[in-house]
Structures are given as structure tokens and as C-alpha cells.
């Protein structure tokens, strides 16, 4: 009993303190808070905080590219304190200050505004120097997250293209938050900050269409880097480029705070503009408003362009590191092996050579270890490609690794950093001007292509043999006053992946285009869809040769029989005579179901010279046989921007 008895005066004191504690937040809000809030709001207005770049960045206000109206890109009411917060920075700032006086108990789903909008709170605290009249919330959840992240630096991560997938040239960007006690070999333990659409990609076409229309919300996540590396490097065989950024500790804190407040906020995910790269850049803008990186991207953001934007800021990128994919590691290892050793490894991988007999074919234990390690990488790669069944691979890898662990440790050859990087490639936009002759008629051509790369564009920084073009439009001026759209490639993809002793990829092409063609009834517009499957070989290090089986569906509104199907074949070669000088030739023949076309032969030869990183010159000659009998020669200057 004695233990809990409290003297009477002490009891009063206790009750007083208790009541004060219970009502304090309400008291502050009711009496002290209102005049102080008004002081803060006046001070903020006097200092024009609502129009400062930091405030505009924190709330993601941007002018609409067409209406020029200011609006926030966030599509989530909970992101704003004011009802009109998404269009009115001043009213949002006033309401935000008011919301800071409301302190609530933190739960896994609820936070005080000071914590939920922790970057805003921190910045306003710095600007307005809050005094003791501002109640302070304990942001335990944020602090726990920040402690786990343990930040010291920030690295921009770029996952580059992967073999046989031209679309991957678009790449992907995210941040890695480097940890305080991190060493080069423990970098994968760091967390990443990345933005992703919260949709199910298994939905296929509806995923794509919903994404285009902004129907998927995007969310920020902080996945450990090793899971990203596994995904990119091991499963997709993409090389990763790491750009270490020179940011101050306070700038890095701002990135973390802002990532926290964006965590659950819904941004409608537009593939065209508000994609992952755009939001990654917006974090940098918040950290250092003078960078103004997102202002450079109004219509679309291609991930590699965001890397280039960061590199263009003097001193922002401290150094660049290359993290080779499993495939690059495999290649580097195969370069050090003889043909006989590679054959041995393949036999071990296929199970045609018993592991127990390995030592009979090698000169030393370390040579056996070398062959086994290569077999391991090769087998894992085959599994990822789906060439070998999972269960079977699992057993073979297990036996292989058990054996490997009984041999000595050997030095490993890691691949060197490639001499060119994806960020050194030509810009993704292209403008072209051409002069040509078709039959007896000469013409001028103007072309515009927003993205990204074709086989005649300068290859530096791009994946060899890979092409992806989107919305490539060409207009032709014939005579003095006649201009018309000549060609529109909605999409034009090619993947020429050479086959060799280790990898046997298929090559393929796909194209959807509107174009004008010459027919026996004059020029008509055709809408065509074509796809090809084939093979490519390295003839020399400078030349590729390929063969395709082609299918084509064509729709011609001007014809009585509007649809036509075609099947045929193409052979061709790509030859780099000199690093900047390339020649491509194609011969193809196609049987068409439309009687007026019949058998169509096409011959073409094209040559390209790289003039400077931003300019290239091409000359192309095409011959079309039969009903579409035309000969065209075009000379073109291409400018990349």
C-alpha cells in the first residue's frame, strides 16, 4: 500500500500534470496555437515561401505543358492539406502549417502530419524557425526506417539493355542509398529507392493500355539492392551502371524525407511522362532545387536521358562503376578458356561427361576448378533462358558445386569496364532532312522520330544489332507546293543477335507502318504489319549476316480487295567498314495473296557515316519489283537532339 500512496499536495500536482498532458494538444490548438499559426502564415507569406522552388518541388507543382496552369502531379487527396491544394500552393502552405499542430498517436497506418509530410515539416521548420509553441511529434516509424537505411551517399543506378531485347535499350533507373559502413563488396546490402507502377504486368495488353492512360498508381519502394541485382544481373542479364552522386549529407536527408512522404502517395502512372525516371529526378530536384532536372522533361522521360541530364550538371556525378551481368561474367570467363575447355564444360553441363572423369581431361586441380566454375555459370545461364528444365539443372548444379568446393580457390577474371557507356549514345530524338529521286521525280524529305535507335544510327552506347523506333514520321515535299506524309512507322523493332558456340539466340523483327507505295493505279496508302523470325551470325568482328522468314499483312483502303497477306524471306548483311561507316544490304522476296502484287522482290543498300556525336549522313538505294516497280535513291542528314 505504501508503495503507491501519494502525499496530498503531490497528488494535486500529479492530477494537474496529468490533465495538462491530456489536454495540452487541444489547449495549444484552441488558444496558443491560433495566433502563433497566424504569425507563421504571415511570415511565410512575407517570405514568399509558397512560390519558392523548394515548396513547388515538394508538392510536385508543374505547369501544364498546354494550358500553362499550375497543378500538382500527385493524384492523391491525402498528399494535400488544403481542399484546393493540388492547384493552389499558397492555400496548401497555410493549411499545411495548420495541420502541423495536430499531433496523433502513431500506428502502423496513422502518422501525424509532421511525420507523414516530414520533408515539408523539416523545410518549413528551417525557414520559419518554429519555437516552443509548435508541438513536436515523435516520428518513430520514419526514424526506424532511416536507421535501417543508414544513409551516407546516393548512387544513380541504370540497368542497361539486354541481349535480344531492343526494348530494354530504354533501360531503368533508381537510386541506391549507400550505407555508412559500406565497402565495395557489401554494396548490394544497401537499400534502393525506386518508383514503380502498382499493376500486374501479367495483364499484358491491358497493363500497357491502362498504363498509357494513367490508370495505374505508381508507388515508391525501398527494396534491398541485392534483390534488384538478382533481377537485372542474374535473371535478365543486364549490365548495371552506377553513377555515384556528389550530394551533401543534408541533401541526402532531404531525398530520404521526401521519399518517405511520397511512399504511399498515388501518382497516376503515365508511361509517357510521369514514369519511374521522372520521379527519380524529382527527388534530386527536391534535394537541390537549383538542379531543375525535371523541367527538362515535359513530354516523355527516357531513363537513359535522365542519366545524361545528371551527367550534364558539373560535378554532380563523382564516379561511374560497372556491374557486369551474369552473361558478361560468363563471356569474360569464356575468353580465358580454350575451345577444348569450353567443350568440356558444355559436356559437363549437358550431363554427357561424368563429373568424376573431369580430372582426366585437365592438367591441374585449378584448371578443373576453372572449368567447373565456368560450367556453373553456363548452366545457370541456360536455366534462366529456359533451355534446361529447372529440376534437372538444380540436381546438376548441386553435384557440380559439391565437387567444386573440394578444389582450391582460384583467381577470377572479372570483365573490364566496356570502353563505351549507354550514357554516351546519341540523343533519343532525331530530326532528318533528305533529298532524293524516285523514278523521274526528285523530292525533299523531312523526318521526325521521338525515339530511339535504328541500325543506321551511330551505334556507340547502344546494343549492337538492336533497333527500336517509335512514331517515326517522314513527310515528302514533291514539287513546289505539295507536302504529304510519306511514311509513319508506329513501331519498328529489330533484334539481330549473333549465334555462336555458347549462345544460340533467335533474331526477329516487327513493324507496324503506314506508307505510300507505287502501284499500277498510282500511289496509295497502305497499312501494314510485318513480323520476321530468323538467325544472325558474326561473319567477322565487324560484320553480321542474317536470314529471316517474313510474314506480312497489308490493308489498302483504295483497293477493291483491301487485304493482302504475304510470306517470304530476307537475307542481308551489316558491315562496319570503319567505326563510323556502315553498310547494310537486304534482299527479299515475298509472295502476296493479292493478285495485283504477286511476287514482290526488294533490294536495298544503305550506307551511313557518323559525322559527329549529333550528326550522321546516310545514302540509301531501294529497288522494288513487280507491281510496285520503283527505284528510289535518298540522301539524308540526321540530327540527334
Amino acid at each position, binding site marked *: 500500500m505504501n508503495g503507491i500512496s501519494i502525499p496530498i499536495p503531490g497528488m494535486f500536482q500529479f492530477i494537474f500534470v496529468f490533465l495538462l498532458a491530456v489536454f495540452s494538444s487541444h489547449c495549444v490548438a484552441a488558444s496558443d496555437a491560433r495566433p502563433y499559426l497566424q504569425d507563421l502564415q504571415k511570415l511565410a507569406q512575407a517570405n514568399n515561401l509558397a512560390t519558392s522552388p523548394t515548396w513547388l518541388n515538394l508538392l510536385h507543382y508543374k505547369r501544364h505543358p498546354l494550358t500553362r496552369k499550375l497543378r500538382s502531379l500527385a493524384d492523391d487527396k491525402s498528399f494535400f492539406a488544403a481542399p484546393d491544394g493540388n492547384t493552389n500552393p499558397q492555400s496548401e502552405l497555410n493549411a499545411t502549417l495548420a495541420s502541423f499542430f495536430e499531433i496523433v498517436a502513431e500506428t502502423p497506418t496513422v502518422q501525424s502530419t509532421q511525420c507523414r509530410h516530414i520533408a515539408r515539416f523539416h523545410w518549413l521548420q528551417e525557414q520559419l524557425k518554429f519555437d516552443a509553441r509548435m508541438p513536436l511529434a515523435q516520428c518513430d516509424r520514419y526514424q526506424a*526506417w532511416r536507421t535501417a537505411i543508414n544513409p551516407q551517399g546516393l548512387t544513380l543506378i541504370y540497368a542497361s539493355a539486354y541481349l535480344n531485347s531492343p526494348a530494354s535499350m530504354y533501360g531503368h533507373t533508381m537510386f541506391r542509398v549507400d550505407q555508412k559502413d559500406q565497402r565495395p563488396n557489401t554494396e548490394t546490402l544497401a537499400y534502393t529507392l525506386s518508383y*514503380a507502377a*502498382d499493376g500486374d504486368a501479367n495483364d499484358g495488353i491491358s497493363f500497357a493500355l491502362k498504363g498509357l492512360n494513367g490508370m495505374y498508381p505508381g508507388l515508391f*519502394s525501398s527494396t534491398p539492392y541485392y534483390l*534488384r541485382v538478382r533481377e537485372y544481373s*542474374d535473371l535478365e542479364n543486364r549490365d548495371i551502371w552506377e553513377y555515384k552522386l556528389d550530394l551533401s549529407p543534408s541533401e541526402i536527408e532531404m531525398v530520404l524525407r521526401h521519399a518517405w512522404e511520397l511512399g504511399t502517395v498515388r501518382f497516376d502512372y503515365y508511361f509517357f511522362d510521369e*514514369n519511374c525516371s521522372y520521379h527519380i529526378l524529382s527527388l534530386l530536384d527536391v534535394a537541390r532545387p537549383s538542379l531543375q532536372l525535371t523541367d527538362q522533361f515535359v513530354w516523355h522521360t527516357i531513363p537513359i536521358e535522365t542519366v545524361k541530364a545528371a551527367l550534364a550538371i558539373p560535378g554532380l556525378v563523382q564516379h561511374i562503376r560497372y556491374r557486369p551481368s551474369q552473361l558478361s561474367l560468363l563471356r569474360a570467363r569464356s575468353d580465358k578458356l580454350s575451345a577444348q575447355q569450353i567443350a568440356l564444360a558444355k559436356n559437363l553441363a549437358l550431363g554427357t561427361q561424368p563429373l568424376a572423369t573431369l580430372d582426366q581431361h585437365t592438367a591441374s586441380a585449378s584448371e578443373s576448378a576453372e572449368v567447373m566454375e565456368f560450367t556453373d555459370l553456363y548452366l545457370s545461364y541456360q536455366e534462366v533462358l529456359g533451355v534446361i528444365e529447372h529440376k534437372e539443372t538444380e540436381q546438376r548444379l548441386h553435384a557440380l558445386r559439391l565437387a567444386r*568446393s573440394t578444389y582450391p580457390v582460384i583467381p577470377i577474371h572479372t570483365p573490364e569496364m566496356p570502353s563505351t557507356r549507354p550514357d554516351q549514345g546519341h540523343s533519343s530524338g532525331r530530326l532528318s532532312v533528305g533529298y532524293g529521286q524516285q523514278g523521274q521525280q526528285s523530292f525533299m524529305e523531312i523526318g521526325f522520330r521521338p525515339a530511339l535507335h535504328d541500325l543506321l544510327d551511330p551505334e556507340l552506347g547502344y546494343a549492337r544489332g538492336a533497333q527500336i523506333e517509335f512514331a517515326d514520321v517522314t513527310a515528302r515535299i514533291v514539287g513546289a507546293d505539295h507536302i504529304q506524309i510519306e511514311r509513319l512507322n508506329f513501331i519498328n523493332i529489330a533484334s539481330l543477335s549473333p549465334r555462336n558456340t555458347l549462345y544460340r539466340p533467335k533474331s526477329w523483327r516487327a513493324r507496324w507502318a503506314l506508307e505510300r507505295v507505287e502501284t499500277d493505279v498510282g500511289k496509295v496508302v497502305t497499312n501494314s504489319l510485318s513480323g520476321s523470325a530468323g538467325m544472325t551470325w558474326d561473319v567477322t568482328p565487324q560484320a553480321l549476316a542474317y536470314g529471316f522468314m517474313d510474314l506480312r499483312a497489308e490493308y489498302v483502303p483504295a483497293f477493291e480487295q483491301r487485304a493482302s497477306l504475304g510470306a517470304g524471306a530476307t537475307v542481308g548483311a551489316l558491315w562496319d567498314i570503319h567505326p563510323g561507316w556502315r553498310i547494310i544490304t537486304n534482299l527479299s522476296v515475298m509472295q502476296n495473296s493479292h493478285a495485283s502484287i504477286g511476287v514482290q522482290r526488294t533490294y536495298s543498300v544503305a550506307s551511313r557515316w557518323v559525322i559527329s556525336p549529333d550528326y550522321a549522313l546516310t545514302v540509301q538505294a531501294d529497288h522494288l519489283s513487280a507491281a510496285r516497280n520503283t527505284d528510289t535513291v535518298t540522301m539524308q542528314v540526321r540530327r540527334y537532339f
Partner: protein
Amino acid sequence: MKKVILAGSILFACAASFAAANNVGCGLGTQVMSGQTGVGPQVFAATTNGTSGNQTFGISSGTLGCSQDGAVPTNKVAILFLEGNQARLARELATGQGDTVAGLASVIRVADADSATFSTVMKDNYSQIFAQADISATDVLSNIKHVLANNAALKAYAANI
């Protein structure tokens, strides 16, 4: 047609998410390590990037699997690392070197002075650690703990698992 439209649409996409199953450890171990075959899935996968359950690590989004507001709780750091790196770890422990071995040593807080011993002991006891071909990450971790506990130089680290 579908592929072409799809390819066109994904040009500007970066990522999508797949929900990760959550029945063993952190759930990552149940995902089969395999890539995409065929042209369509490859083009598509190029820009979707979502095989690790991104939203499992949603920032400030509460507790989901092995994520609290996007961070891994201390008691799950080792098992998640195992699940996320099992294939690499099996390869590297057998060869006796690599970043994943260093990562494992860091996760179980092995001092720099002991890291060489750690790699050697892991390699020498490989057959005990990866006792069968289809072993689970949880079993690998408990085998590592067992190997450490039975090693005079490293037994103190067994408590860190």
C-alpha cells in the same frame, strides 16, 4: 498485333509489380529462378522489371511480409538475404569467394579479421550447408549456424543468426 501494340506501349514504362508469396521465411524463396523465353515476354519484361515484389518494400506503407515501412526488420535481415541470394550464395560458397560471401559475412556481423576464415570454413563445409539440391533458405541458414557453432574460431557468430 498484340505484341506490337504492347511493345509500343511499354517503351515508356519502367516497372510493374508482382506480389510476392509469403509462406516461407520472407516468401522470396518460393519464386523459381527463371527468365523469360520467347520474343513477346522478353520485349515485355525489358521494361517491366518486376519480379521481386516491389510493393513488398513500399515506403511508409506499414508492415508487409519482411518489410516494415520498406525496411527489413533486424530479425529478418539474414533470412531475406538468404532467400534473395540463394543461387549466388551456393555458387560463391563453393568457390570460396565473391560479393555474396562478403555480404553474408556482413549480415551476420563477422569481423573483418575473421572474413577469410569465414569463407574457408563455408567452403570446407559446403556439403553440410547445402545438404541437398532443393534445400530451403531457412535450412541453409540453420546449417550455417550449425557449422559456425562447431568451429572454434567462429562459434561466437552463431549467435548472430
